[in-house]
């Protein structure tokens, strides 16, 4: 058994479960957090039985900001904290219903920033730790098809780079992950191009490796770096006319 502890926020997600597997195999203690604790129970027993892992579960609601300090007090300061939860939402719905737009923005940006501020405080006290935030390539340029999601991830990406800058001086590392497509519940039913789509386990392995090597930003599949470079260099005058 390793005495290192990893906190996974959004552990019922496909990427969260894959991360738990990767860290269980490396004998980390797991703290799995999600808004439906009941869904975490089978996941907990599974890792206990298969990996003989030490697993704690905890309830976590991203938009219940005021609960975040107590949450982190309860689960304790982890060595690694991975912010996995996210909400793609429905762009068209969000254009017609502000509640949906607000959900997208408050889960992906405010919720993430709120909890990571608390984690950062605790890690600063301990003078050690790694924070991983899963943002998205969608945050690199707003597109008509998902700009609420994209802008919230853009905010999160900017937040993470600021946090990295601040915590670097405290011996704490921050990793930003910008996965391209991942084959998960979030994208179920979408027709994703295979070569550009990673499996949750692929993403999880890449994250664990990048966290260990103290990388700043990763894309998982390197093709995405090129694609995003091209997308970012299209002049706005042309970009606005595209149907993206």
């Amino acid at each position, binding site marked *: 058994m390793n005495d290192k502890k990893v906190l996974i926020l959004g552990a*019922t997600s496909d990427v969260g479960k894959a991360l738990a597997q990767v860290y269980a195999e490396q004998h980390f203690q797991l703290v799995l957090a999600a808004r439906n604790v009941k*869904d975490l129970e*089978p*996941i907990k*027993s*599974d890792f206990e*039985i*298969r990996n003989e892992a030490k697993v704690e579960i905890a309830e976590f609601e991203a938009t219940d900001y005021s609960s975040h300090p107590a949450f982190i007090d309860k689960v304790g300061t982890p060595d690694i904290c991975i912010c996995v939860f996210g909400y793609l939402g429905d762009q068209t719905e969000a254009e017609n219903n502000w509640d949906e737009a607000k959900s997208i923005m408050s889960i992906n940006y405010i919720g993430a920033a709120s909890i990571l501020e608390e984690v950062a405080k605790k890690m600063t006290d301990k003078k050690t730790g790694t924070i991983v935030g899963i943002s998205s390539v969608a945050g690199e340029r707003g597109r008509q098809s998902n700009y609420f999601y994209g802008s919230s991830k853009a905010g999160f990406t900017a937040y993470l780079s600021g946090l990295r800058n601040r915590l670097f001086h405290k011996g704490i590392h921050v990793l930003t992950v910008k996965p391209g497509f991942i084959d998960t*519940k979030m994208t*179920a039913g979408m027709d994703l191009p295979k070569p550009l789509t990673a499996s949750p386990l692929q993403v999880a392995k890449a994250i664990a490796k990048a966290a260990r090597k103290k990388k700043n930003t990763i894309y998982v599949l390197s093709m995405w770096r090129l694609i995003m470079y091209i997308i970012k260099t299209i002049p706005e005058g042309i970009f606005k006319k595209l149907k993206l």
Partner: protein
Amino acid sequence: MKKISGWGNYPLVDSEINRFDTERELVKLLASESKTIARGNARSYGDSALAHNVISSLSHNRMLYFDTEKGILKCESGVLFNDILDVIVPKGWFLPVTPGTKFITVGGAIASDVHGKNHHGEGSFSNYLDEFEIACADGSIKICSPSNEQELYQATCGGMGLTGVILNATFRLKKIESAYISQKQIKAKNLDEIVELFDEYKSATYSMAWIDCLKGGNAFGRSILICGEHASFEELSTNQKKAPLNLKPKKKLNVPFNFPAIALNPFSIKAFNALYYAKNYKKVMEGVIPYEPFFYPLDAINNWNRMYGKNGFVQYQFVLPKEGGKEGLVKILKKIRSKGMGSFLAVLKAFGEQNDLIAFPMEGLTLALDFPVRKGLFEFLNELDVIVLEYGGRIYLTKDARMDGQTLAQSYPNFSKWKAIVEKYNPNFKFASTQSDRLNITS
């Protein structure tokens, strides 16, 4: 939409595959209009896990409870036997019953009520089943055991997914001292000898035989009986004793693409058999071997099913009652030989008694043969069906892709009783497979 099939790659069906993680997600899926059928790891050969809409259990695969003292395991229905073995063997436990592949799910094990090489003494999988939970057509979830929701329990074991989607199951394991099997292989000159050998070795925990379907004359029915016992610690070699419950992972071979069906003419089958026999040059051979090659010899080659070419193949497995069964077997083997419809693999086994509602096994002999799909095959198999019926036998649904509904109804004595229970829990045939439609169970 995606083309899917069973292990035999026949038939192919355009299908939408839906997965579920949690019970909640399953109930949501069941609320939709479409007809559907549960699908595990698709190791059934024919069309029992096929439909235009299927519900895959493969993401519902968490282990829930393992009592390492008493040997009781509870897990979700999509957990594979392979994963269970990885967990339980190092702790000194084994599956109570296992088929010839470990890549099946717990749900599939119940729905087909699978048997193993120990059926003659230890029965089928459901004998070790304490309880399961199942989601029925109306979305209700029922806890079933031999004493609770009895009729639903009985109709589900061997019920081919037609009563609902099994969510999880609790079953008893078997204590072992090592991950090894002490194996004995005995050569039988002909059919009479192998049938006698089965009797002589009926106290062996595990037994089955490879049978050569092509040889005629004096050697008609020549076979090799393979018996096994879980090896005790004392029986192990010094090397094996170092880690008695842990096997080293082995590299697997791959069949990378569909072989042309031509590779499987009677010549290649003969060559295969000759090779197989040459290895067993002595009458009796003994050894202590890891459990994997003993139980799962075919799992060493990934996708071996592709060897039959892109038209696929069917497996024909029937059982004939002890009384008169041998005569029927001779008839069938002779027919296969005369038509040159030889099977690459033929497995012969003796079953013990079993009187469950819809289970396949009955006391007698069971033979399983593979046939590549080609012109004339189905007509030929219909002729075999007639012989099976004539001798009071029946055909295993989890292997079937072509029998007709009448044969099914005639050969399973409790068929109408079972069907009535299916209709009670699945009134509008929400659960229907290509197979159950073909067999007029749900159509």
